[in-house]
């Protein structure tokens, strides 16, 4: 039997076709068995340490047969998987810097080759979004995170020199007349 070449070209000479001979099913079986061994081991350790059965036997397979699982809130409705305070390690204020909602964030590409340790997925998402200048409020909206959380994360990145901040004109300081006139003309031209 020949397979026409496609995007997921089958029959790669080095690897063999993963769809052949139930390779995927086999892999899943392996993972499953490994998971069960790990579960059993943990349960055993728990009993050894605490001297009691750690958790009731959980029937596998039928979701509807699990009355303790609330299926009304799933995916996004269930709220964030990681709570905001966990994302910030309990911090409510950024370690460095102050971040107005319209302060512009730009990823410092020169520093990107030397990515620091301890960066969370959210930190990395900020670095990805801010390759082009982006306001703090826009970042928060794209990441679907509260402003307070984003500020803490930005503080971390600023501390590591991974971003540059461009602040809006200071409070009480009006933009120059030339900028104001440019804004008026720009609005008229829209």
């Amino acid at each position, binding site marked *: 039997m020949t397979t026409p070449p496609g995007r997921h070209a089958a029959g790669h000479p080095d690897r063999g076709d993963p769809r052949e001979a139930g390779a995927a099913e086999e892999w899943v079986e392996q993972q499953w068995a490994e998971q069960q061994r790990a579960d059993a081991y943990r349960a055993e350790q728990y009993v050894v340490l605490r001297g009691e059965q750690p958790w009731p036997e959980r029937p596998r397979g039928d979701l509807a047969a699990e009355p303790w699982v609330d299926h009304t809130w799933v995916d996004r409705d269930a709220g964030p998987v990681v709570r905001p305070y966990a994302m910030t390690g309990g911090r409510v204020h950024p370690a460095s810097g102050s971040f107005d909602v319209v302060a512009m964030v730009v990823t410092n590409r020169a520093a990107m080759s030397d990515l620091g340790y301890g960066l969370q997925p959210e930190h990395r998402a900020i670095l990805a979004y801010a390759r082009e200048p982006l306001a703090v409020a826009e970042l*928060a909206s794209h990441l679907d995170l*509260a402003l307070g959380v984003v500020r803490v994360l930005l503080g971390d990145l600023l501390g590591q020199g991974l971003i540059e901040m461009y602040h809006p004109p200071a409070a009480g300081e009006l933009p120059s007349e030339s900028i104001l006139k440019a804004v008026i003309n720009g609005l008229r031209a829209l």
Partner: protein
Amino acid sequence: MDYGRSSRPVPTAIKILVAGGFGAGKTTLVGAVSEIRPLQTEESLTAAGIGTDDLTGVERKSTTTVAMDFGRITIGQDVVLYLFGTPGQDRFWFLWDELALGALGAVVLADTRRLADCFPSIDYFERRNTPFVVAVNCFDDASSYTEAEVREALDLDGHVPLLLCDARDRESSKAVLIGLVEHVLSLSTARAR
């Protein structure tokens, strides 16, 4: 090759607030002129580390969030306007302080059917010396008042512009923003003298 900078120059961000009572058309106005679908951002009260005074009435809620709508207008390469619809409820006024800090000015949307709803906004910006204009959103079923009547009811200072608008209409909303920036410009020229 220069990896240090983005290819795009970093524009100056200018913040404009859109205030007014609940249902006065804040988000509508932002949506009418924004180049992007109005985005939403949330401020989590707990994460923001707000003083307990501000949480009066919501102190039993551990995670209260308040949503702000905002839009963007790019003016050439150098300037980006951000329009923020201010959260309507009184108890979130502390958010305004942060929003109003460094804002160019504000548009107060008034609905003549419920004129009193915009009194707090006007008080707020007067107290803070934030330049603002009042835009009367002309709802279809609202009885029409003359500008003088509305001005008197709001007890507006003579120099504060009062404009009529339809927040759903892009041109009309643009005119309101132009009115605001012109007002700011005239204040700044007056100050320079």
